[in-house]
């Protein structure tokens, strides 16, 4: 594969700069909270700056090729190298992780959840950032695995320390479940390594060699990767860690989890599993598609049964990631494009929804849907922002969600050659039904929370002063949310901003399938 390696320092700096920030933070006394926060935020902004530099230097005419490539010796005994690069698929996700980290930090400025400990909280977010960015640029499986696992620990602590009442169960479940998946993934990576002659963990090398592995071995290896990635996505039936983790996690954790962490799984499919093991991918595709559409319907029905706003949004992720996986399972460039767009769109929209849920919880001290009502009356701006995000989430054209959803449905009509058209057309119709259910649970949520009169409990009519702390969107929230809202709108109105760079890269990924 032809590579472009100008400015090859950019990715490494962009990835590891947050760790430098953590190092600096270690020397700041715990009591100086503002200084700690400032250092963390400056680091995150500087990281984003490097990301934006990468964006400006990115050669958009060559979006299908790996750029900023750097390769150097790393663990020679494992034949693993430090090998990074970025193309049209990774770039949006790489930048998304940076943007989300900055916004989450802005939001956290005056929203550090109980039990405090600002320093640790911000440090964990920076470590998380390194892990996320690293995963998206890694071109070596061991490197990928290290970053992929690096993400786990900070998130585990975030949920376990700053989470809700049931945080211990949720965090342990999250950790072990993901770990279980990772273990199988590692098995698969090692098997792949041995089957290709134990020469290298480099992804381009494995893409060349992987096709030569026997069909049976491919299917087994793919299976290992599948579990690892599917847990992360999460796909039905490996999803049960998600509602617990989301519900218990602090707002910041939920946002990062939804916006970026889930994408590590789908990214793994697109970047690693499918291009390296094309034969197995074809065998697995109908099953992945099946689980994806089950997830769409099942997640939606799960949403309808929820009484807690945050848990509802969490379940909606299962449904939305189902659309992403459906797109991937078609093994066509239509589907993959939709999937990558869907990853970004879901990150923005669901991230935003979790932000709102956090702010609602902070004001009302509850997320029980039946106790919330008339939000538009008490907090009109917050209410309309929720309305906007709900519309985006249900796939309204003109907002980002549509471009992940409709093309995914479209692509299922005609999957890659060799896949059963009938099967996928059935999936298409089921997925289309899923859009109706999505409209159902999201609008129902909006109708119950935002419309109507505030309940007596919060309207100030009763003798409790529950209603007194309720104020509309504050300045930190505006700063954290405005970029996300703008991105949802801009990508919705002019989707080609993303499609233009994704498409060539996707064509590259699918070259094993004959385009």
């Amino acid at each position, binding site marked *: 594969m032809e590579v472009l390696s100008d400015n090859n320092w950019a990715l490494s700096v962009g990835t590891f700069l947050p760790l430098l920030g953590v190092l600096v933070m270690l020397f700041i006394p715990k009591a100086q909270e503002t200084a700690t926060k400032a250092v963390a935020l400056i680091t995150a902004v500087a990281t984003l700056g490097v990301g934006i530099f990468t964006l400006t230097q990115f050669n958009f005419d060559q979006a299908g090729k790996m750029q900023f490539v750097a390769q150097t010796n790393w663990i020679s005994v494992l034949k693993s190298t430090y090998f990074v690069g970025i193309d049209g698929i990774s770039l949006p996700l790489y930048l998304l992780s940076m943007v989300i980290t900055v916004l989450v930090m802005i939001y956290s400025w005056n929203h550090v959840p109980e039990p405090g400990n600002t320093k640790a909280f911000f440090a964990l977010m920076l470590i998380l950032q390194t892990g996320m960015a690293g995963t998206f640029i890694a071109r070596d499986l061991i490197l990928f695995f290290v970053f992929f696992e690096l993400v786990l620990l900070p998130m585990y602590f975030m949920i376990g320390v700053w989470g809700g009442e049931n945080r211990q169960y949720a965090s342990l479940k999250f950790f072990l479940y993901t770990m279980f998946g990772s273990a199988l993934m590692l098995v698969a990576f090692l098997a792949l390594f041995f089957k290709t002659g134990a020469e290298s963990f480099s992804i381009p090398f494995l893409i060349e060699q992987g096709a030569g592995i026997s069909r049976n071995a491919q299917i087994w290896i793919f299976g290992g990767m599948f579990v690892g990635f599917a847990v992360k996505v999460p796909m039905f039936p490996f999803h049960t860690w998600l509602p617990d983790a989301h519900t218990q996690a602090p707002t910041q954790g939920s946002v990062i989890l939804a916006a970026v962490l889930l994408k590590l799984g789908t990214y793994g499919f697109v970047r690693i599993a499918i291009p390296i093991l094309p034969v197995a991918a074809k065998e697995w595709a109908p099953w992945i598609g099946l689980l994806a559409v089950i997830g769409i319907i099942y997640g939606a029905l799960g949403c309808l049964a929820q009484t807690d706003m945050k848990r509802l949004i969490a379940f909606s992720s299962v449904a939305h990631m189902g659309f992403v996986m459906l797109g991937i399972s078609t093994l066509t460039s239509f589907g993959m494009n939709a999937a990558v767009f869907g990853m970004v769109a879901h990150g923005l929209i669901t991230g935003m929804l979790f932000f709102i849920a956090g702010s609602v919880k902070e004001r009302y001290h509850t997320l029980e849907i039946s106790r919330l009502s008339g939000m538009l009356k008490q907090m009109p701006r917050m209410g309309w922002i929720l309305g906007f995000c709900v519309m985006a989430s249900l796939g309204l054209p003109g907002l980002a969600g549509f471009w992940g959803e409709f093309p995914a449905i479209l692509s299922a009509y005609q999957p890659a050659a060799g896949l059963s058209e009938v099967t996928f057309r059935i999936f298409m119709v089921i997925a289309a039904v899923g859009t109706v259910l999505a409209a159902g649970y999201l609008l129902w949520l909006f109708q119950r929370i*935002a419309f109507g009169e505030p309940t007596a409990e919060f309207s100030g009519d009763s003798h409790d002063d529950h209603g007194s702390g309720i104020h509309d969107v504050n300045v930190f929230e505006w700063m954290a949310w405005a970029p996300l809202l703008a991105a949802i709108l801009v990508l919705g109105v002019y989707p080609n901003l993303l499609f233009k760079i994704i498409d060539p890269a996707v064509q590259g990924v699918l070259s094993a399938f004959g385009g």
Partner: protein
Amino acid sequence: MFFAAETAETVETVLKSGWFLENAWLIPLMPVIAFVLIIAYGKKMPMKGSEFGIASLLASLAVSVGAAYQWIQRVDSAAPEAFVAPVIKTWTWWESAGFSFGIGQHIDGLSLTLLVVVTLISTLVEIYSVEYLRGDIRYTHFFGALTLFSAGMLNMVLAENMIQLILGWEIMGMCSFLLIGHWWEDGANSRAALKAFFTTRTGDIGLLVGTSVLFFASNAWTQKTLGISGFTVRGLSAWALSGDPGHAAITVGAVALFIACIGKSGQFPLHTWLPDAMAGPTPVSSLLHSSTMVVAGVYLVARLYPVFFTGMNILGTNLNLIVLIGGITIVIAAALAFVQADIKKVLAYSTVSQLGYMMMGLGAGAWLPAVFHIFTHAFFKACLFLCAGSVSHSASHHSFDMKKDMGGLRKFMPITFATWIISTLALCGVFPFSGFFSKDEIIDNVGHNGYTMFMVLGLTGAFLTAAYMTRATYLTFNGKPRGAAAGAHDSHDAHDTHDAHASRGPHESGLLITVPLMILAALALGAGFLNPAPLGEKWERMKHWVEPRPEVISPTGISVMASGPGEARVLTSPRAEEAKHESPCGTTTPTGGICVAPQLDHAPFKWSKALMSMLIVFLGGFLSWVLCVQLYGKKNPKLVGLTQRNKALGAGYLFLQNKYYLDALYEKVIVHGIAHPVAQAVYWFNQNVIDGVVNGFGTVVRKVSGWVYRNVDQRVVDGAVNGSAAVAQNAGSAIRPIQSGKVNQYGALLFGAAAIGALILVIINT
């Protein structure tokens, strides 16, 4: 005419174009900008944002009218039977799989008809709303949503391709949700909003599926022949008539799209949302739920007519899905209009019924009459709704209950009454009001094309229409004022912010309300003369300007050339005129070119037929009048309470009252079923079965690991694990309560297992 082989005989014509035609894409864009301004600055403006909306719509109206004028010149610049190329513009919007898909404009007679109607009615309705909603708590929001709605509709109308059409379609749906639920403090309103969005969205499954099916079926052909995608209106139209489409694909695609049309245009059996949508403010009912948004489905059928023509085999058999649904809807909805007490609901069912006429017309090959009916219906139905609004605003104290709060308003509201009567006559199809020229043409052509049974349904509908409109007119304007109209106060209205007028008793509304009424009434009276079949071919201007001519054209003949603004060149054969009735479009495969419109026949106008249908209308009106006088006026004891005494009549009445029990089926059975038992069952499965497995696995692992810890770990594995455990415990000293030690064990265990597993896998597969 097979000019490709006979170039010597062809003549090249440069079609006229102009600035307005070329820049018609500005028409939806201006309201979008106004929407942004309203949201950003509306509340600070002297007229609270309504000025942005009205100004943008006036500008859009001006561009639409300009474009329509230039289109007429364009038509006149072409040879009498030559194809007039639409003015198409496109910019890249998104790309995928190496194809690029556009957004732009597709301007021809059909889209211009709708553009003019929508901008005109939107403008009038916004002006009306300035008075009608004065002092409303969400005045600015209202104008924002209304303006965005217009933008969505306009965008859908001039859409160059299906994705752009979906964009406008869904934006309308969303605005409809906001506007129906405008007074969302009341649970009933927000539920109606949810219902409307949800029902149309259910139909939209078809839109997504149909678009996908048609895209993949046609894309290869359109790319090869025309160099455009299988989403484009032009591409799909040409493909549908090319003889290329496989039978199954185009039928499935057409049926799927039609399901979306059923939902959006309130056709049976998805019509149930439309009457509930009357919960919105009256201007919303007038604009969205009668004259514009609900015709979106009809418009889609008309826009992609070749697809439906081929897919549904229109004219090929004497029954197809479109004509069937349309015909059923006419009668089903008209019958429901009889049992309504709410004047707006009468009009809502009337709208459903009239949309049925349009669908039936399209399904029976009466394309132009159906499109003409969209045009005339928009004026008189908008007028009727605004009259109802005027009554509630100035006479019945915000009530819409004809039986309780109206009556005798004829004397107090002369303008409202006069405009109502004109529009009612137009709706009933009385000569020479506009509805006559469109509705009668539909009925006539449906019969002419061999759909005799549906002609009968159409005539039945005409009878029923005259009857229920007479009843509504009688209850509202005749007799003596009752209830609120008589000055009785009722505290049922939560949105009332201005009580002053109530004490004055019923009176005529102000100019901001009556002027739009008069303009619309004038159009309801006169618009029919744009295509008066009785006066002969020469008078049928609408046919001349709007109906696409079914000619075989070269693939490049309809593309805009780079040479200048809109200078489409059309190759026509001098023999075209004689070849008129030999056009192969729609019947056989065109050779040497493409068709974008099928050859359709027109029924010759006969006074005898027209007189017969007029007679039916008068009969309906007369019988209804007699009944009303007896029942409501004289309270004839034989008629009052008849439905309670006569079992059969009572059952029929109950059946209608309950809207054929469709609502009960949808809400109580389907929606409630999915939202409650099914969702609960799935969630139970999730928590107890799937999660049970996960937790059970966790417990087993914990037990096993305890055993391993005692027996293996303590003796065998120590150095590495203990070392890493120490590190983790130091780092996580703040997190001691979370059993970090255990996590570590699991981790170590899993990694060990991973290595062993990998080894086994490799050995097995070697």
